[in-house]
């Protein structure tokens, strides 16, 4: 066969090149799209988790105030109050911490690292003991006998 017959032939090249370029551009666009979508999901997940932690923290702070109100009514009082909270927020496990020094409820996830702080406004704030509980059903305990305010896993 005489190769020279096709050596100068350029027919069909532009179609192949165009196809390859199309594929490359499509791949870049798709990658960018997927990256953006993944990033959006991640951002939304963090926002959702933060929002949910804030709501849970406020519910815990409100329950602490309820328990404090009850304990102050008489003497030698004891209050044990259970509160239901989700086990996870946006699929993330979290920890609830009753912070003794700052008188706050801290809700924290590890990956990604999100921390929400809710101030606790109770009359006997100096009774607060540094305690923590895994997210889920927790209890609040106020004991006037040993002047303590604690939380724990119910």
């Amino acid at each position, binding site marked *: 066969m005489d190769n020279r017959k096709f050596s100068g032939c350029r027919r069909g090249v532009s179609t192949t090149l165009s196809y390859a370029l199309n594929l490359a551009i499509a791949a870049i666009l798709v990658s960018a799209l997927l990256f953006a979508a993944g990033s959006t999901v991640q951002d939304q997940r963090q926002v*959702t988790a933060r*929002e949910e932690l804030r709501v849970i923290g406020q519910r815990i702070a409100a329950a602490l105030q*309820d328990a404090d109100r*009850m304990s102050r*009514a*008489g003497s030698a009082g004891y*209050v044990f*109050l*259970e509160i239901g909270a989700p086990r996870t927020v*946006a699929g993330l496990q979290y920890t609830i911490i009753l912070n003794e020094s700052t008188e706050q409820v801290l809700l924290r996830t590890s990956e990604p690292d999100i921390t929400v702080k809710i101030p606790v406004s109770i009359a006997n704030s100096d009774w607060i003991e540094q305690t923590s509980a895994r997210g889920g059903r927790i209890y609040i305990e106020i004991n006037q006998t040993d002047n303590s305010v604690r939380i724990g896993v119910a």
Partner: protein
Amino acid sequence: MAELRKLGSRGEDRAQLILVTGFALAFTLVAIVLLLNTTIYTENLASRGIDRSPDEAVEFRVAAEDGLADIITAINEDANHSDSLTDVENQLSKSLTNFSRMMGRSYADRGSIADINNRSFILNDGIILRQDDTSRRLWNASEVGGNWTLATGVGKTRKVHFNLSHDHLQGITNAFRINLSDGTNYWRVYIAGYTNGVRIYVKEDGASRSPALCDIPVNSDYVQIDLSEGTVNGEDCNGYSWWGGDDPGNYEIRFENISVNQGSYSMVLKDGSPYNIPNNYNTTGGNPTYIEGIYSVEVQLEYTTPTLQYTTNVTVSPEAPHNG
């Protein structure tokens, strides 16, 4: 001319990238929807009322305190000179048992256990000083006019009520006075009557007498003076109340200018030191008299629901000063 390829064989592999992308985007959308769902749930959680148990527990405590106050008042009102402290205690125990049972049944309907611990209450005994004859003068059992001392070394006083004849009340110069003195400080209230009303004055610790704290119109024959709540015929009198609402403890109670005034009265005292009821009373059922009664009762309340355990000790002393 190049030949067009048939669909099939190699054509089946086409658009794989778009297909994979489509799946990935679909998955992303599902993830976002799930997150949105979580957000909606959280917002719902935020607007949802939390457990009602704490409110119900406080409601139970208030109801128990009110009920106990009524029981104490009823027992004191029914008490007479022949009752001993043991009689009073037995009556209180019986009433507490009935009250506890009634409250327990009422809250059982809501799925809660409400208990007033009637097995370990503490009764703080008191003395009821009383004159129930509204036409008698305010003097002592010997019917000597002027001034007389009702008690010395009084710890606290609560529920001080007078029902005085309006016609017999005097103007400020000779007004009926109740004088409280702890040897160092004193507090004195004047109850002065005028044609159409009653005026209350207060004097304490060497200061000059206050202007009239209130001038309450009176159209009836008798005037109800409540020195615990600071009212005249139920109307507030600028906050005058027993020792200005700050009962210091350990003082004497003295009536002054009583020879003309007449009416009934009662008050409940808690012992202080040195406590003494002078020999000025009728001990055979006449007026005025003193009776063993209840000053206050300390009792344990328990309220339990599936999510709450609440225990507290409350002290009930109806119409006591704020520190009593």
